[in-house]
């Protein structure tokens, strides 16, 4: 499944990343109990800070202007157009993951939307009941069991990880917009796609900003869960949370200090009773 060029690219990138990690590890103090998936945290936080500034002064204002100026049908059309282009690669990735019916459905979507949907401006296929999927090479690699590797914040593009960055390189290599010969057209399309994408995140962005104590950590955790959910097509393995084994009653009365521990035993017995039923 994996080509040798991919392998060599992977090993090359991981080797340079390892060197980078080593360098950073030497400069950053080892005292912080860092996130296990984020060995490059100091570098990532620096890139994140850069992205935040770039977003604040350029990307967000442009996306907000687009949101204000473009009428809804135009924005829907733009989303559909790039969505249709994306469906080609989504379908291919579904096939790579062995999901034949999804892949065929995606092919059907492209067929319907490119013709009846006027080059993808209208999403007729969804109206016909062909559900839209979202797949990419990173997900396909994840589906086949490739681990996600260290968390990475990419300049301008934001949250990613080693696997998804490699996947992205693959995605872009075959991306129709990147194949357009004429530079001006290619750049305009890429710009429009980027602005449109950013505009779809305007509401979520505000929510994350309000919700988070530390936006960096919040978005990192978000990305990790989000990609896991995508790889499992909306049904990620849901393990009983190891931190959630005690019941309400047990922790309210439960001993904060061992001295108050007299009633602990019966309480634990009561609280653990329903568990076997849960875990089936």
């Amino acid at each position, binding site marked *: 499944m994996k080509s040798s060029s991919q392998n060599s690219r992977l090993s090359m990138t991981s080797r340079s990343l390892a060197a980078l990690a080593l360098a950073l590890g030497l400069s950053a103090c080892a005292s912080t*109990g860092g*996130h296990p998936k984020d060995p490059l945290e100091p570098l990532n936080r620096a890139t994140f800070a850069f992205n935040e500034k770039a977003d604040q002064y350029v990307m967000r204002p442009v996306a907000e202007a687009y949101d204000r100026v473009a009428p*809804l049908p135009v*924005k*829907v*059309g733009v*989303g*559909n157009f790039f*969505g249709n282009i994306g469906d080609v690669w989504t379908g291919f990735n579904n096939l790579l993951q062995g999901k034949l019916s999804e892949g065929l459905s995606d092919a059907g979507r492209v067929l319907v939307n490119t013709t009846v949907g006027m080059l993808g401006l209208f*999403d007729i296929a969804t109206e016909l009941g062909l559900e*839209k999927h*979202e797949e990419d090479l990173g997900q396909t690699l994840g589906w086949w069991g490739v681990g996600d590797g260290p968390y990475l914040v990419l300049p301008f593009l934001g949250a990613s990880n080693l696997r998804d960055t490699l996947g992205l390189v693959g995605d872009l290599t075959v991306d129709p917009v990147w194949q357009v010969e004429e530079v001006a057209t290619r750049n305009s399309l890429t710009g429009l796609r980027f602005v449109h994408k950013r505009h*779809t995140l305007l*509401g979520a962005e*505000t*929510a994350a900003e*309000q*919700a*988070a*104590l*530390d936006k960096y*950590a*919040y978005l*990192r*955790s*978000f990305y990790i*869960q*989000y990609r*896991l*959910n*995508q790889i*499992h097509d*909306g049904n*990620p393995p*849901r393990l009983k*949370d190891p*931190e*959630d084994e*005690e019941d*309400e009653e047990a*922790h*309210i009365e439960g001993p*904060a200090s061992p001295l108050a521990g007299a009633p602990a035993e019966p309480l634990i017995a009561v609280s653990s009773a*329903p568990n076997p*039923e*849960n875990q089936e």
Partner: protein
Amino acid sequence: MKTIRTLLAALTLGFGLQCAALASTIAPDALVKSVTDDVITIVRQDKAIQSGDTRKAVELVETKVLPYFDFAHMTRLAVGKDWRQATPEQKAALTQEFKTLLVRTYSNALTQYRNQVIDFKPLKARPEDSDVIVRTEVRQPGAKPVQIDYALDRKVDGWKVYDVLVAGVSLVTNYRDSFGQEIRAGGVDGLIKSLKDKNKHLEATVSARK
């Protein structure tokens, strides 16, 4: 006069009992649907909420949604393993502050509501299950539907939501990393203080906007 008062008391009591009975017997998917429908109907008619009146949205959430949420459970999940080292007072303070933060965030999301359609997926659970996930999908024109799932568990007084997942991301456990950072840096009290500061800051921005 006295009879009216008795009658009123009887009515109130009867109504209260009925509500309690309803809450404890109603199935989790039916519960999520009825609360969602209630809230959406109100937001659709309320121009103030639509134009971003967070205070009004908070009021709506507090009366219609809060009774069905188990914030102690949510806070315990968000804090993770450090929960055990917190005193009962710290636990209470954490729960209070986290609740304020979640209510504020959720209410703000409500003000963004624009005619999206919510689909309820069939519940996959057995009658004896005491921990279920109710799946919904928010559809809007020109965009892929967003998956929103509610995790509920059965309590003596009915089903309670203890987690909300947007696109597979738990809005509760998403806090665990930053809560852990705060606790490592300043202990449980440090986390309580950070949450208090965050809530004060949000309160101030809302007042400033008015």
